């Protein structure tokens, strides 16, 4: 009856890893353009903002919350940073403005969800629209395009001597930290506890309100970094920056084995899912498939994989249950004599 959580998720990560590697090998052998510095740099760079959004989102989903305003927060941060640059601010100043924007946006989400206790799906649906609209209100329809060359270079060039784009560096720097925090540190244990048993967690001294609030704030801040990355990549700050990116980010988290019911999932699985989707998109891109077609493939992958694991788990569980039951039946039938005689 008990396939332990760990072994189940372990196997899910293995499946993802195998799938990714197979896909990578197929792509590398099937298409000469795949394993080129240019393609790798471009493929990785495309995911730079989404990869950042995935990090805090995974933690939020583990604590049974969700933030679908991630792309809007990145967009609004890009707008405020762009305005700062436009007003003659330095790059660090612009980054500071963006971070503060993200912090405030995240704190607003956190206030409604963690402190007022409203459902995060609706709250962040509201702020998704609100923050995006704010971007338009602040900037009007015209993007800011006098972006400093350093930032543009950051969004478009690779680290010299490698094909690692600069813009994935924020993710690469943060990713180990998120994984270690969730998997190895006390806060990670508390996050799992909040997702798996909110009441038990609070009776055990875990401050759910504070943790959730902070997670929403971190989400806002990390998304504002994604906003900066986006400015560099597009060489402009536009109100529609990172539009619609939340779908990919959420998809990666779910695909990575994080349960929408909370309490389950590991960062390593999420990273494999990120790599898998990056590879899939790259392959489709090389085949000349458009953005919507790529989305379709990602959507199919998401539903198909979850459906399959559900069916397999259910089937194996019912099999194990049935075996245990028939064994127990036999056992009790053989020692049937004792209880009838006992009352005096």
């Amino acid at each position: 009856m008990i396939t332990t959580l760990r072994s189940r998720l372990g196997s899910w990560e293995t499946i993802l890893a195998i799938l990714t590697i197979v896909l990578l090998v197929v792509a590398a052998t099937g298409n000469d353009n795949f394993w080129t510095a240019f393609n790798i740099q471009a493929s990785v760079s495309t995911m730079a903002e989404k990869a950042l959004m995935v990090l805090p989102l995974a933690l939020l989903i583990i604590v049974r919350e969700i933030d679908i305003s991630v792309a809007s927060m990145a967009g609004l941060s890009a707008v405020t940073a762009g305005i700062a640059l436009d007003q003659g601010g330095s790059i660090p100043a612009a980054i500071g403005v963006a971070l503060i924007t993200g912090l405030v946006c995240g704190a607003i989400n956190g206030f409604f969800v963690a402190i007022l206790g409203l459902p995060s799906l609706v709250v962040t649906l509201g702020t998704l629209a609100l923050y995006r609209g704010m971007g338009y209100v602040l900037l009007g329809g015209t993007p800011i395009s006098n972006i400093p060359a350093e930032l543009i270079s950051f969004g478009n060039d690779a680290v010299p001597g490698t094909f690692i784009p600069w813009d994935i560096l924020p993710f690469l720097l943060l990713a180990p930290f998120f994984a270690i925090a969730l998997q190895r540190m006390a806060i990670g244990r508390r996050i799992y506890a909040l997702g798996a048993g909110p009441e038990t967690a609070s009776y055990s001294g875990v401050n759910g309100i504070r943790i959730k609030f902070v997670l929403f704030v971190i989400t806002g801040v990390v998304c504002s970094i994604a906003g900066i990355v986006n400015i560099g990549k597009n060489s402009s700050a536009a109100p529609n920056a990172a539009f619609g990116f939340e779908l990919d980010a959420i998809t990666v988290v779910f695909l990575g084995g994080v349960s929408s019911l909370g309490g389950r999932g590991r960062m390593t699985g999420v990273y494999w899912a990120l790599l898998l989707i990056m590879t899939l998109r790259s392959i489709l891109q090389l085949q000349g498939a458009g953005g919507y077609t790529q989305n379709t493939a990602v959507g199919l992958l998401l539903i198909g994989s979850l459906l399959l694991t559900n069916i397999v788990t259910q089937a194996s569980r019912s099999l194990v249950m049935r075996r245990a039951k028939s064994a127990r039946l036999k056992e009790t039938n053989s020692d049937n004599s004792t209880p009838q005689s006992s009352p005096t």
Partner: protein
Amino acid sequence: MTEAVKARATAIAEPARSTAPDSESGAERVHEPTPAVELVGISKIFGSTVAAKDVSFELFPGEVLALVGENGAGKSTLVKTVGGVYRPDEGFLRVAGEKVELHSPLDAQHRGIAVVHQHPGLFPDLSIAENVFAGQPIRGAAGLLDHGKMRADAQKWIDMLGLHRDAATLVSSLRTSEQQMVEIARALAADAKVLILDEPTAALTIGEVEKLFTVIDDLRTRGVAMMFVGHRLEEIFAVSDRIAILRDGRMIDTRVTSQTDQAETVKLMVGRELGDLYPRHNVTIGDPVLTVSDLSVTGSFHDVQLTVRAGEVVGLAGLVGSGRTEIARVIFGIDKPSTGSLNLDGNPIRPRSAADAMAHGIAYVSEDRRGQSVIEDFSILDNATLPVISQATKLGMIRRRLELALVSESLERMKLKFARFDQPIGTLSGGNQQKVVLAKWLATNPRLLILDEPTQGIDIQAKAEVHRIISELAAQGLAILMISSDMPELIGACDRIMVMRHGEIVAEFDRGNATQYEIGLAATGVTAPVADQDDVGLAEAPAGGSADALVHADTALNTATATPHPPSTAPPEKPAEATRPQREWLKRLVGRRETGLLAALLVIIVPLSILNPRFLSSANLVDLMLVETSLIGIVAIGELMVMLTRQIDLSVGSIIGLTGYIAASTMAAHPDLPVIVGVVTATGVGLLCGLINGVIVAYGRVPSIVVTLGTLAIYRGVDSILSAGKQVGSADVPDSWLAWTAAKPLGVSILVWIAAVIFIVAGGFLWKTSRGREIYATGSNPDGAKLIGIPAPRRVLLAFCASGLLAGFAGALWASHYTIVDGQLALGIELTVIAAVVVGGVSMRGGSGTVLGALIGTFALLVIKNALALAKVDAQYLQAFYGAAILLAITVDLVVARRARRTGKVLA
């Protein structure tokens, strides 16, 4: 009460020979009337636990058979088997002499078996009347539901049971005891031939219990066979004709009530002489650890004085709801005291949270083990170290070695039976789980340990071990406060026992002079002795050598019983006059979400139309708003249905895009085809999309947010692959295709007429058909829906299909109404649709929301949109306002709900 009930007991003389063991009784009863229900050799096994083994007994028409046994004896399993929830692994049922296989609760219902469940399986978002007739609604003309008659009939039933409420009241506003009466009314309304009462009196007051027993008497004379499951022997002896005793999943014996007594019953239930359950060490009691002075929480308890010294075990006795757990919650920092102070080791403390209380050295083992003490997915080790996990870190990293150091010693001392530390705690037995919980709290090095029902639901062996541990802890100088409903446990384990009643400490007993009898009197407020020593009762898990000594507080029923609320709460009989139907009606109208929305709408519209006369006077604008409301509203109705079932459909925008393009391109490719072909194609494709969503959600058990997030991408992708960047312009399609939505019968766009028809049909469907109400029921209480046989997956599928179908139909309308159709049609419209539904008061928790609300929500958003357009605000700003509208709507809801709860509390 007892006199009357006992008097009629003699009327049921028939089953006089039932002292014989059940194995023989079947053969001896051949000449007797056909049993209403007969269990033949029933066994039921869960995993490796045997819940029932070879149980056989009969239930005759016109008798009350009481089913008694300790926790885990198998009572609930048998109730669920007869109720059609479980299918037996061995053996079978006979209903009215016919061998049957019950496949579902609905099956059982059809055969006249009704179950009143222990935990009310009601639908909080539906009215009393609908709950009473849930699963068997009254239909009027054309098979539509007759709400008027249901209300009237339900009113009769609840009046008869003495529940003085308007049958149109929502169940969510009732107290637990009132909800129980609704459950009973539901079973009565089903005109059941077999009625199973699973601890029906657990939450009832004395008045309600008496009324229930009167009803049971009445049903008995009408020949209904009843099975009464309960713990309070006093009640069982008052109401039953025969008693069936279960132990460890096996039928021990059936006795005629009038020929046995409570002492004998207890002996049969316990089945064994118990050794010394409560070892005591010689402890020198030290200085006070906890001192509670004048502590009060409004509505829960007041002016509580309490001292617990080092090495002392202080018991807190009292009925459920007397304020015991509430005191513990304040000491542990979960709730805030209204007045009074706490002292720990002489220092005043004011714990603001559980973490704070832990830091002060307070530990609390909750009464709700599954919900508040363990995390079933977590391993034993992870559970045990959760409160102290930060102490098991080095350089911020958790070290397993340190974790083990914190808890392994105490786990060893508990003699925990387990395979390995990484085993999920859910795989352990209740007793072993409780040991892990104790170890978990000991790891926090507490000065004060609060135990709330520490041995509830665990077997006798584990119970003895838990008490051994408690005694050892006290010997080490820990101060222990133990809340328990188990009287022998309190007397055996405690140095002092405080008794609570109605939020007050009413008595205190020392170890030497505490008797169950005296404690029972104090807890129930009985002044004159009503029960002599033979009239014994029984706690949850009876323990103690002599059954004669057992008197449980709950059994002093004759004069008083548990009131779940402190004395400030009025008894339920009284508020009858306060609820005048007319004022209720007005209150309901004012309280309705739609009313508030309309008012809010007027607040926007009136100043706008004064400031800008063009706003309402412009026929074009009004027309535009109506048309848009129609187009979005149709989709919103589908979304409403999905959200009523606690799901969400994010793919509606993509479905509109896909079906719109398919409709337009079909008409462009085949201009000769009649318009209807385009419409039907779009609708059909939409239905297919909804079907895919629904099947994956309902049967694949993938959460709807994930599924529709995926299909959002997939449907849009198919759309863009089909359209391949092409547009279908107005020149490409036949004129007839454009014309059919441009028609304006009676000066109003045909779109508005179509939408109006859909709204009325949808509203009628949701309100007037049982399927519609079942959609509400499914979302309101999925488990309850399953219990009364509502096929929840099918209703979820239905909702998704409706959503897809309506989105598909809307796609056809859009394709005809808007001049250019491409792969981007209705991109992102799901945001507006969900916003409209949420603003319209549809709850994300499911079960609550109306077509009218969704419509007003849609209209409100479009009024905002057009008002902004008129004020020359950039259209792109619009989403900021939509977003703000959503946040405002849910915040207002929250405030209203909180206020309602507060006033509800005061009223109750």
